[in-house]
C-alpha cells in the first residue's frame, strides 16, 4: 500500500534518515519504533511532503508522495496526524472536524461528522467548545477523528500515546484496531511506547540513528529479547 524506498533526509549535514525502505501493507498496522532522535518523525514528515528527501521516494498506489506538496496528501488518501497532536485550539471541536473533511472532493457530509461523534462521544458533547478546553486524551481523539473526516486510505500517526494515561492509550489503540478491521485502513504508527504499539500492530519497523534496523512481524519483534533491550526499552 505505502512503499518507502531508500528514503534519505538530511537537515544540513545531519542525515536524520538514511536509506530507509519498507512497505506498510493495506489494512494492517505497521509500528515504527526507535529511541528519541531515531528519525521517526522525520520519516513521517518526509512521506507526507513536509520535507523534501535528499534521495529515495515514497509511493501510495503508484503516486510518488515525496514529489507532491503536503496539501495534496488528503486528496491522495493520506492523512498525517503530526507529533504534538496539531489540534487547532482557537477553533471549536466541530470546526476542527469540518476542516478535516474539506480536502475531499465531495466536502464533508453531515454523516461523516456523525460517524466521528459516534466513535468519540466525548467530542459530541463538546461540539461548540473551543478545542482549547479539551484534555490530552480528548485532543488525541479529535485529531484522529479529524483525520478520518478525509476518509483516508493511509493514516500516519506520530506518537499518539505521548503524555496520555495508559487507560486512554489502550482505548485509542483499541479504536485504531477496530478501524483497521472495519474499514481496511492502513496505519503507520510511530511510537516510543514500543510494548503497547507492538501489542496492536501487525508489523514493526525499528529505526536507529536514521537507519532501518529490522522490519518484521510485530509478534516476532516483541519476542526478540535482545532487540527489545537494545532498541525498544522494554
Amino acid at each position, binding site marked *: 500500500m505505502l512503499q518507502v524506498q531508500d528514503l534519505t533526509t538530511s537537515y544540513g549535514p545531519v542525515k536524520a534518515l538514511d536509506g530507509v525502505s519498507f512497505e506498510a501493507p493495506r489494512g494492517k498496522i505497521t509500528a515504527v519504533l526507535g529511541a528519541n532522535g531515531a528519525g521517526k518523525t522525520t520519516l513521517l514528515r518526509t512521506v*507526507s511532503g*513536509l520535507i523534501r528527501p535528499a534521495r529515495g521516494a515514497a509511493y501510495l498506489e503508484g503516486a510518488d508522495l515525496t514529489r507532491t*506538496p*503536503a*496539501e*495534496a*496528501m*488528503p*486528496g491522495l488518501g493520506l*492523512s*498525517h496526524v*503530526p507529533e504534538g497532536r*496539531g489540534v*487547532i*485550539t*482557537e*477553533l471549536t471541536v466541530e*470546526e476542527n472536524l*469540518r*476542516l*478535516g473533511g*474539506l*480536502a475531499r472532493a465531495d*466536502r464533508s457530509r453531515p454523516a461523516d461528522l456523525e460517524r466521528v461523534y459516534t466513535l468519540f462521544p466525548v467530542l459530541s458533547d463538546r461540539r461548540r467548545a473551543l478545542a*482549547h478546553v479539551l484534555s490530552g486524551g480528548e485532543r488525541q481523539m479529535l485529531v484522529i477523528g*479529524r483525520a478520518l473526516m*478525509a476518509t483516508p486510505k493511509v493514516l500516519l500517526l506520530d506518537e499518539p500515546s505521548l503524555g496520555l494515561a495508559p487507560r486512554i492509550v489502550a482505548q485509542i489503540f483499541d479504536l485504531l484496531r477496530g478501524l483497521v478491521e472495519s474499514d481496511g485502513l492502513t496505519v503507520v504508527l510511530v511510537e516510543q511506547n514500543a510494548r503497547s504499539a507492538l501489542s496492536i500492530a501487525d508489523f514493526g519497523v525499528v529505526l536507529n540513528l536514521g537507519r532501518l534496523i529490522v522490519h518484521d512481524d510485530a509478534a516476532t519483534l516483541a519476542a526478540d529479547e535482545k532487540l527489545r533491550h537494545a532498541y525498544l526499552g522494554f
Partner: protein
Amino acid sequence: MQQFLTTALTGLTLGMVYAAFALALVLIWRSTRIVNFAQAPMAMITTYVALVVIDAGYSYWIGFAVALVAGLVLGAVVERVVVRPVEGKSEINAVILTLGLFIVIHALAAVIFGSRYRSFPAPFGLRGFQVGDLNLAITGFGIFTIVAVLVVMALLVALFRLTDLGLMMRASAFNAEVARLLGVKVGRMLTLGWALAALVGSLAGLLIAGGSLVHPSYMDSVVVYGFVAAVLGGLDSPAGAVVGGLLLGVSLSFVSGYVGSELVALAALVILMLVLLLRPGGLFSHAAERRV
C-alpha cells in the same frame, strides 16, 4: 449636553475608521505575525485611484468601488511579490520590507499624483442634522462611514464564521502546518488574507478622505491610531480591534473637545503605553487563551 453629544458622535465616527484600519492590521498580524507598516500608503494610493476615476468624470460610487478592488489587488500583489519571498525567514525581514514599501509608495505617489493637497468629494452632506434645538454633530457622511464599516465587518464575520473558505483562512492563520496537512492551500489563504486586509485599509482611507483633503501622507497618522487601537484589542482579535478602535476614537475625541486638540497624539501615546504596561495582551486578554 450639545458639546458632549457632538464630541461622542465625532468620536464614534472616527473610531469606526480607526477600527477598520486596526482590523486591517490585525488580519495580517494574526496570520503572518507581521505589522504591515505599508498599510497606510497602500490605502493612500487606492484613494488616489478613486480620485483619478472621479476626476475622469465617473461617479463617486464608481471611484469608491474601483478603489476597493484596487486595494484587494494591491494587497494580493504585495503578499506575492514582497512578502512571499521572505516567508519562513524571521518576521523582522518582512516588517522591514513593509517599511521599505512605505517609502517607495510615498515616493511613487508624489511622482505620479504630485504632493499638493487635493480635495476629495463626499457622497453625502457634511452638515449636521437638526433635532429640535439640538444640533447633532453626526453628518450624512458620518452615518455613511459608520454603516460602511459595519457592513464590511459583518461581511468579514460572515466569511470567517460561516463559510468553508473562512474556516480554511482561520486554520491557516492559527496553524499553517496543520492546515497544510489537512489539504488547505495555505499560500493562497495568506494572499487572500492580505487582499482582504488591504481592502479594509482602503475603505478606511476612502472614509478619512471623504469631504477632506488628500496628499501622499494624509494616512500616516492613522496608521499610528490604527496600531494603538489594534494593541488595545490585543492584536490577535478582529473583534478586539473593532472595540479598540471605537474606544480610541471616542477617547481621543473627548481629549480633543475638552482638553485640547494639540494633545490628541500625546493621549494616544499615553493610552498605548498604559495598555502595554498594564495589559500587554490587550484589554480583553485572558491569560489562559493567549497563544504561546
